[in-house]
C-alpha cells in the first residue's frame, strides 16, 4: 500500500503509573480500508494499545499520529472525532436517560449545531437498526444486544473514521456473534470505516477479519492478512492463541497437500475434492 497510514504508531512504549510495562516498542500502521482483528491473551496489551490509539492513554515514549495529529498534543474532543472506542461492557458507557440523548451526548460534547446533532443521531440510530419505539426508552431497560447497539450508535454519531470495538462477541452465542460481525463488516464496506475488533474468538476472526495483529507481552508478534498470520504457528504459540480447529487440521495435514492458510470448512472441502479426485 502506497497511501499514507491513517494511524501510525511509532516506537510506542506505555508504562502504567505503578511501573508495569504494558507496551514495549510497538510499531504499527493502520490504513484506510483496514478491517482488523487484535488478538492475544488477556494482559497481552491489546486493550492498552487500543486506548492509546484514541488518546485515552498517552504514550510514555514514542508517538502515535492519527490523521496527521500527534495524540500527545491533541485534545480529547478532536481525538473522539477520529477514533471511536466501544467499551466491552455497554453499562459503563450508558449514562443518559434515553436512547436518543445517549447518542446525542457525543455530538453535544463537540458542540455541533442542534440541526446537525439531530441529523447525526438519526443516522447513527438508523445504521445500527434501532427501532424508533426505543428512542425515548431508558438504555438501562434494553436487553444486552440492544444496549450494545446503542453504545455503537453513540460512537457512530461522532463520525469517527476508525472504530475500535472491545470484545463485541463475549457472552454472545454464535448466531448473535455473527450478526454483530456482519453488522460491523457492513459499516466497513458501506460506510468506509476502519474497523478494529479486539477479540478471543478465533473462528470469528478467521471468518471476518482481513488483517490480524497478534500481541503478546506488550509486543506485536505477528501482523498480516488473516490466513498468513494463522499460518505461523510458532508466532501464534507465543501469543497463546490457536488458529481455528479447521485451520489446525489443515496444517497438521499439510504434507497431504492441504494449505496451512485454510480458514473455513468450505475452503477445506474444495481442497479435499481436488486431492481425493486426483
Amino acid at each position, binding site marked *: 500500500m502506497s497511501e499514507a497510514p491513517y494511524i501510525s504508531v511509532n516506537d510506542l512504549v506505555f508504562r502504567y503509573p505503578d511501573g508495569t510495562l504494558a507496551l514495549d516498542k510497538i510499531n504499527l500502521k493502520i490504513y484506510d480500508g483496514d478491517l482488523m482483528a487484535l488478538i*492475544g*491473551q*488477556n*494482559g497481552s496489551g491489546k486493550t492498552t494499545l487500543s486506548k492509546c490509539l484514541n488518546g485515552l492513554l498517552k504514550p510514555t515514549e514514542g508517538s502515535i499520529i492519527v490523521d496527521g495529529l500527534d495524540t500527545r498534543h491533541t485534545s480529547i474532543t478532536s481525538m473522539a472525532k477520529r477514533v471511536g472506542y466501544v467499551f466491552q461492557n455497554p453499562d459503563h458507557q450508558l449514562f443518559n436517560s434515553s436512547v436518543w440523548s445517549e447518542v446525542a451526548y457525543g455530538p453535544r460534547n463537540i458542540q455541533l449545531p442542534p440541526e446537525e446533532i439531530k441529523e447525526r443521531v438519526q443516522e447513527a440510530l438508523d445504521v445500527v437498526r434501532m427501532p424508533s419505539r426505543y428512542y425515548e426508552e431508558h438504555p438501562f431497560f434494553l436487553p444486552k444486544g440492544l444496549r450494545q447497539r446503542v453504545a455503537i450508535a453513540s460512537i457512530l454519531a461522532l463520525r469517527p473514521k476508525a472504530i475500535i470495538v472491545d470484545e463485541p462477541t*463475549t*457472552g*454472545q*452465542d*454464535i*448466531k*448473535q456473534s455473527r450478526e454483530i460481525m456482519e453488522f460491523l463488516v457492513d459499516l466497513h464496506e458501506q460506510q468506509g470505516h476502519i474497523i478494529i475488533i479486539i477479540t*478471543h474468538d*478465533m*473462528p470469528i476472526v478467521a471468518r471476518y477479519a482481513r488483517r490480524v495483529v497478534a500481541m503478546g507481552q506488550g509486543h506485536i508478534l505477528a501482523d498480516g492478512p488473516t490466513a498468513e498470520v494463522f499460518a505461523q504457528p510458532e508466532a501464534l504459540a507465543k501469543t*497463546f*492463541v*490457536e488458529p*481455528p*480447529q*479447521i*485451520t*489446525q*487440521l489443515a496444517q*497438521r*495435514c499439510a504434507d*497431504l*497437500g492441504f494449505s496451512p492458510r485454510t480458514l*473455513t*470448512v468450505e475452503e*477445506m*472441502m474444495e481442497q*479435499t*475434492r481436488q*486431492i*481425493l479426485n*486426483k
Partner: protein
Amino acid sequence: MAIVRFEDYQWKYANTKEFALRGINLEIEEGTFVGVIGPNGSGKTTFAYSINGLIPSQYYGVRKGHVYVAGREVKEYRADELAKQVGVVFSDPEAQFTAMTVEDEVVFGMENIGLTVEEIRERLEWVVPLTEIGHLMDKPPYEVSGGQKQRVALAAVLGMMPRVIVMDEPTAMLDPISRKRVFDVLGRMKHEQSNTVIAIEHNLENLIPLADRMVLLYNGEIILDDEPRPFFEQMDLLLKHDVFPPGAIQYFFELLREGYYNGPLPLTLDDATARLRQLVEKVKEQS
C-alpha cells in the same frame, strides 16, 4: 438412581409471558459429564438455577413439576444443605468473588457449610494443586487474570465437595488458552473424582472430548439428548437450532454427505487428523 431428575418441569418468571423452561424430563446418572448447549435465551441459565435452588428461592415465578437432587425435591432443601449437594460456577468470574484474598475465597464456602479448620486444611491440600492456584493464595481474587479467576471459582466450589457441579458458561469471558486450562482441570477432575458435572458451554471444541452426553436446549425445550457421536450426526437438526459444531466435525460431516467418508464422526482434533490421513492415504493407494 439418577442424581438429578427433572419431571415435567416448567418455570415462568414473573413479569414475562412465556415459560422459560417447558416440559423438561431428564435423568442424569451420578458420575456423568453432561454438556448442555443451545443459543442464548433458550433457558440454559434457568436450567442451572433450577438445579441449585436459586429458582424458586430467589426468583418470583410459576413453577410446575419437579426437580430432584439425590432423590429429594430441590425446593425442600435448606440453602446450606443444597450447597453441599450442588455447586455452581458462574460465567462472570468477577461477580462471584466476595473475599479479599484467593484463600479466603476458597475457604468461604467451606466455612459456610460448617467444616472444621482441620477439614478445611485437608481439602485445601487437595483442591489447590488440582486447580493450580497455589501461587495465588495471598492475592486479591479480582486482581488475578481471567483464567486464574475461573480456576479459583472452581476451587471454591470443589472444596465444598458437592456431588453435582453445574457450570454456567464458565469460559465465556476467557481467552483461548485460559479456556483450555479450565477444561484441563475439568478433565483431571473427571478422571480422578466421581463428580457429576453439568457444563453449559458455547465453546464446543473443549467440551466435546470430555462429555459423556450432550443435551440441546432450544426455546425452553430439550430438542436432542444423546451421546456425543450420535448427537453430532444430527447435523441438520443442530444447524437448524443455531448450534455450530467445531470445524473438524462439520468438515467430516460434509465428507460424509459427499460420500468421501463413511466412518464415525471424529470428536477431537487428534481423531480427525488420524482419520483424514487414513482417508487420503487409502485413496492414494487405490489410485
